[in-house]
Each structure stands twice: as structure tokens, then as C-alpha cells.
């Protein structure tokens, strides 16, 4: 196997392991559209990275984090519903990002790599970013796990019990921002949310605890990366969509398996 394939596989597995627990929270807290918004904002982050002359991962994390924190404050105003605010930020930042990237890189820029991912072009530096930032996100998530779960179960009850709800919320947003920045190397901006929620959804019916669902989601994600990459290389297909399609296939199998399993005893 070629070096670039090993790097692709390693990056994909790292991102899938991260996406399992984060994606579970996205599903539990109904944040799919929020994930999309962060992903769209990521393109603006790419442009910021190019302008500032730093690695685009840093630019993406910074812009996504700013958008996430902005969202926390905007949604507290309650003048507009949450999904209206998300829609404004999502498409606003995507458009600004498209313009900014075009201005910085010129009109001949290849957007496809950003929009659908370019996992086969993952560099050694990208790999360091995935495992370095990824380890930091997982460590922080372990620390935040119990209060974050308490807020997810019932925000008001958690607040009355003394959980610092806003600080936990901002912390989670930062972890999401980082995860999106890393996942976009694998599946691209438009498919990031798929990699987050499809494995978690596939894991739901086979888990009895939140932790089991997170681990199972990570496992499904790793399976999707391995199967998707194999398929992409064998059939010469774009890798990002192939990974998401593999996840979709595993989700379909999980639905069928759950239906089959629940039938005899009902």
C-alpha cells in the first residue's frame, strides 16, 4: 500500500474516533443544523488561514469557534428562532467564505477539495493536526462528560443543580469547532455533518448507555472510513462521498438488524 493511502487511513480513523462521541452529542442535542453551520463557516476559516499565512486548520478552528460563541449569545436573545439564526450564519459565512477564498486564491481555485474533502492528499502535517488536536478534544470531552450529559438531559435541572451551563455550552462548541476543522480534511465541508450523525444514529439502537453509544458510533465511523477508502481506491471514486456512503450503508444495516432483532419478542 502506498504512503498516501496509509496517511489517508490514519487520518480517517482518527477523525472517525473523534466523530463518534461528538456526533452522539450532536444527535442527542439535535444539533445537526448547528454542525452544518459550523462546517459552512469553515470555508471562511480556510480563507482566514490563507490570508494570515497559517495552517488552515488553525484558521478553521478560530472562525468556527467565533461563530459558535456568537451563536450562544445570539440564541439567548430569542428574538429569532434558533434555526433562523443558524440559517443566517450558515449561509452568510459560506458566501463570505466562497468570496474570500476566490479573492485570495484567484478565480481558478479548486473548491472541490474543500467542499468534498481530499483525504488522499492528507500530508504528514495534517496527520499531526488530526492526532494532536484530536487527543486534546477527547481529553477535554472526558473532563466535560458528566456535566455535559446533565445539561443534555435537562438544561434547567442541571442549572438548578449548579452546573455552569453556559461555560459547558461554550466548551462543547469549541470541541465541535475543532472536530469540524479536522473532519473537513476527510469528507469536506458539505459532508462533515454526515460523518458526525450517521454513525451515531446507526449506533443508537444497540446501546443502553450514552458511553456505549459513543464507542459504538466511533466503531461504525472507523468501519465507514475503512470501507469507503477501499471502495474509493478500488473503483477510482471521490473518497469523501464514498466514506459517507459507507456510513449510510452501515446505518441501513443497523436499521434492518434492529427491526429483525425486535420482531421475535414483540
Amino acid at each position: 500500500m502506498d504512503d498516501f493511502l496509509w496517511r489517508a487511513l490514519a487520518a480517517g480513523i482518527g477523525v472517525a474516533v473523534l466523530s463518534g462521541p461528538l456526533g452522539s452529542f450532536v444527535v442527542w442535542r439535535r444539533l445537526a443544523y448547528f454542525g452544518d453551520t459550523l462546517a459552512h463557516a469553515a470555508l471562511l476559516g480556510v480563507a482566514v488561514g490563507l490570508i494570515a499565512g497559517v495552517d488552515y486548520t488553525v484558521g478553521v478552528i478560530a472562525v468556527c469557534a467565533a461563530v459558535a460563541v456568537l451563536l450562544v449569545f445570539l440564541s439567548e436573545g430569542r428574538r429569532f428562532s434558533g434555526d433562523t439564526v443558524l440559517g443566517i450564519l450558515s449561509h452568510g459565512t459560506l458566501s463570505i467564505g466562497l468570496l474570500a477564498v476566490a479573492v485570495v486564491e484567484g478565480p481558478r481555485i479548486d473548491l472541490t477539495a474543500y467542499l468534498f474533502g481530499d483525504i488522499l492528499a492528507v500530508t504528514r502535517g495534517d496527520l499531526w493536526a488530526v492526532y494532536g488536536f484530536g487527543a486534546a478534544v477527547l481529553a477535554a470531552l472526558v473532563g466535560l462528560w458528566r456535566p455535559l450529559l446533565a445539561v443534555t438531559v435537562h438544561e434547567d435541572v442541571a442549572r438548578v443543580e449548579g452546573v455552569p451551563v453556559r461555560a459547558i455550552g461554550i466548551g462543547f462548541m469549541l470541541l465541535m469547532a475543532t472536530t469540524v476543522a479536522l473532519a473537513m480534511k476527510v469528507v469536506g465541508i458539505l459532508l462533515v455533518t454526515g460523518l458526525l450523525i450517521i454513525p451515531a444514529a446507526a449506533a443508537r439502537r444497540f446501546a443502553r448507555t450514552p458511553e456505549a453509544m459513543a464507542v459504538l458510533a466511533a466503531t461504525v465511523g472507523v468501519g465507514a472510513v475503512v470501507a469507503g477508502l477501499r471502495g474509493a481506491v478500488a473503483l477510482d471514486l471521490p473518497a469523501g462521498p464514498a466514506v459517507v456512503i459507507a456510513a449510510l450503508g452501515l446505518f441501513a444495516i443497523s436499521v434492518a438488524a434492529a427491526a429483525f432483532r425486535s420482531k421475535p419478542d414483540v
Partner: protein
Amino acid sequence: MADATASASLVEAADVDVDLGGRRVISRVSVSVAPDEVVALIGPNGAGKTTLVRVLLGLVAPSRGIVRRKPGLRTGYMPQRMTIDPALPLTVERLLRLALATGTDARTRVRTALDEMGAGHLANATVQELSGGELQRVFLARALLREPELLVLDEPVQGVDVAGQAELYGLIARIRERRHCGALVVSHDLHLVMAATNRVICLNHHVCCAGHPETVSRDPAFIALFGPQAVQSFAVYHHHHDHQHDAHGDVLPLEAESKVKIGTGVHG
């Protein structure tokens, strides 16, 4: 800083207004809950009961007026809305353990709290398969785990039948006897409130009337708010049934010293 009079209360709102979305939901309301006191909050739908509770809990900031809580007050809260997303796999035991810092006796304490609420058999059930009444007991057990000085119960409109509510009030009375905590109860069932509390606040955006249940039930403002039929039917709650129902609807023999008399519902 709390002054001498305020320190007697667990929580106190003084002359509070709350505006939500440009509408005044609560106007010039003053309430307080003292230790060892059960205060009931009643009023028609949309009267601002839940909003007032959220203000007292510190979940909503008042637009005007002052809310004081005893410093370091431990509060147990049973919210009105308790739905948990079906995507979250969670057992009852785990839901309760979330209220505790990880300790060696967490499991025992959770079991004890559930048993106390008559919900011990639900420990391994997943939260989504519980009925409204069961979920209410589970959240009540969770509130108890906190060893609360103040218990705040926002009763759900749906999901619990009248007899189940009667039993719940029995539980609340027992909790209070044993732990001497103050309690603030939002209720939609006048009879149960009158039977199980020692102070009633009748809210319709402002405080219509407040005081001992019997005094309040004779207050013209109360009669105007709930209508003469409702007031008349208070006589009902004084009569005795020869049996009672538990939260599952099973018939139980009536305990001789049962503190809760069961009346017919006032709703339609």
C-alpha cells in the same frame, strides 16, 4: 447581601416584574418560602406560574424587583417538562446518578431515593419507556438526592391522573416531615393543593390573594378567578374514599392516618 428579614426565607421575590417578548407576564409579585413551609402556587393556565418559579430558581432574570436566595441554597427541582430525547440511551439509575458527584455510595443512594418514591422497580428501565407519572417520581427522586433545603415542584398539566397526584402529594408530605425542607409546589388541582399545603398563593400575572388555604378559598378574588362551582366543590375534598389508587392505578386500602384526601378533579 441578605438582611435579617430575608435570611429567614429560603427564597424570596420582592416586587418583581417579568417581561417576556415585550409582554408583562408577572407584575409586582412578592413571594417567599420559609424553611419547613409548603407554599402552593395556583392560577389559571398562562397566569405566569412557571415563569415565577423560574425567576425564583434563578433561571430567568426579573425585569424589575429583587430575588434573594439563601446563600448556598441546595434546591431540588422537578420541572414541568421532562421529555428526554429518544436518541439518548439512558436508564433511570443513570439519570439519577447524574445528580451526584461520583462517590462510592452513589449506587446505594440512588436506590434509596428511588425506593423512597416507590420507584425502585424502575431503576433499570430506560427513561423513554416511563409514563408521565413514573417520570415525575423519578425526577422527584433525583431532586431528593440533592438533600434539598428547598424543593420546587412544577406539576405537569398532563400525564398524571388525579389519584396518582394524590399519592404524589402524600410523598411530598412525607419528604417534608422527614427532611424539614421548604417546598414550593405549582399545581393545577385545587383540591390537592388545599389538602396538602399550608400557604396558597393565587397568581394571575399578579398575586390575586394569598394565605391559609381556607382563607384563600373564601377570598372574593379567588372566587372570581376560579368561579363559584370550583369553590363550592371544595366541600368534596373533605369527604372520604374507602380506597385509594397508587400511581399505576391499582387499588390500595386506605391508610387510616392518610394525610391526603382524594377529591374529584376540577377540570372539565
